[in-house]
């Protein structure tokens, strides 16, 4: 696949969502068999675009599927957590072995995030759907703006704080692009733990993986190198989403017809996206992702407010 094909994937994503929405609205939703195929294609494209755009699949899946496809938001959020979980679990072993993801860094942050995401999932399943849909629309639009404005810091550093020293939040990894081994340590540990509690709560409420927030928190706030931040974010999501996913599973809010084709589609798409990452103009794809998120956010907001049901 050439770089331009990745751009087509982003455009095809928007077109697929739009066609599915129009089809559902036209009363064709009674044909059950088409929806697993639509979800598989949609999440396959999402997987490609999400990896190249540098975000998790869940933050695109929940607003797009929840706003344009006929499934109730409860099942979409349940599926969103499961697919983010499956996608990050698939990548985590390789990232741990390469020492880009760091288990010691992940443990305190994931613990705070897990407790909060469990609470968030309970809250999310207790609130009226219209409230969650409206808040989702606002959140997704805010995330799109955050992605637009946030810059990453490649070269970070600074001294570790006392808690960071106690928890030994430091590591090293080989960076082939620089041709040397990078030593790193993090700081602002308490603020970082608090941030992950907040991120976990929102992830639980909306069924998102929240990689869009994890990476800046690790990179810009705690000072982890960008590669360590991206890799460790995936491992954090794999643990945080497990606890939130159990709340949705136990509530009965995971519908296999929605969740399983989606997790398979995003797993395959993410693998292809990872291969395309080096040859694709990521900045262009990222801009398309932001536009798609803004459209999905507006749609979720209008649906939540009852303006465009």
């Amino acid at each position, binding site marked *: 696949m050439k770089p331009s094909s990745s751009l087509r994937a982003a455009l095809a994503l928007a077109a697929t969502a739009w066609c599915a929405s129009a089809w559902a609205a036209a009363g064709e939703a009674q044909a059950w068999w088409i929806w697993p195929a639509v979800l598989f294609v949609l999440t396959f494209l999402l997987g490609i675009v999400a990896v190249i755009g540098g975000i998790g699949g869940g933050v695109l899946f929940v607003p797009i599927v929840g706003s344009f496809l006929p499934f109730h938001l*409860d099942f979409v959020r349940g599926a969103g957590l499961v697919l983010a979980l499956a996608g990050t679990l698939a990548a985590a072993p390789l990232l741990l072995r390469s020492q880009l993801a760091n288990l010691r860094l992940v*443990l305190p942050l994931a613990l705070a995030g897990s407790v909060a995401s469990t609470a968030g999932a309970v809250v999310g*399943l207790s609130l009226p759907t219209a409230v969650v849909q409206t808040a989702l629309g606002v959140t997704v639009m805010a995330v799109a703006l955050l992605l637009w404005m946030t810059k990453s810091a490649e070269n970070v550093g600074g001294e570790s704080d006392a808690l960071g020293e106690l928890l030994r939040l430091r590591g090293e990894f080989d960076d082939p692009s620089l041709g040397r081994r990078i030593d790193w340590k993090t700081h602002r540990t308490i603020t970082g733990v608090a941030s992950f509690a907040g991120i976990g709560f929102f992830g639980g409420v909306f069924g998102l993986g929240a990689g869009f927030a994890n990476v800046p928190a690790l990179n810009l706030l705690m000072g982890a190198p960008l590669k360590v931040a991206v890799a460790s974010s995936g491992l954090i999501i794999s643990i945080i989403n*497990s606890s939130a996913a*159990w709340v949705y599973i136990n509530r009965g809010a*995971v519908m296999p017809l929605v969740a*399983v084709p989606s997790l398979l589609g995003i797993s395959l798409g993410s693998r292809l996206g990872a291969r395309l990452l080096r040859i694709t103009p990521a900045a262009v794809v990222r801009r398309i992702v932001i536009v798609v998120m803004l459209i999905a956010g507006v749609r979720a907001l209008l649906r939540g407010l009852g303006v465009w049901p």
Partner: protein
Amino acid sequence: MRPPPDDDAQQVYARWLDHGTKLALAVSVIALFLYLSGALAPWVPLESLPRVWSLPVEQFLERTGAPSGWGWIRLAGYSDYLNYAGIALFALVSVPCLLRAIPCFLRRGERLQAALAAAQVLVLAAAASGIFTGGR
């Protein structure tokens, strides 16, 4: 090359996670095939799903007689709830990895890391137990 101080726990965690994730993926693929091909009957007929998939979860459970909590296990002979086995494996796979990492941390005298891993296991076990479900 000097190994990182948490190399042991991290490598063991990675190895167990790799095996567990592959198992969960394999179960999910097989269960989905049985579900969509009709080789194994579902609890909720596929033809009737379009009438209920836009309902909130409470109404869906009421209309279909579908279980909540761990009730899906007694329906695992139906293809839709067999899919829950794959999903549950994905959601549980971190637990044995964390449990296996604890002795590795302890061997290195890293009691704080071991305690964090143990606490994480307790949080995941509490979430999986069905204590927290929410409801409107």
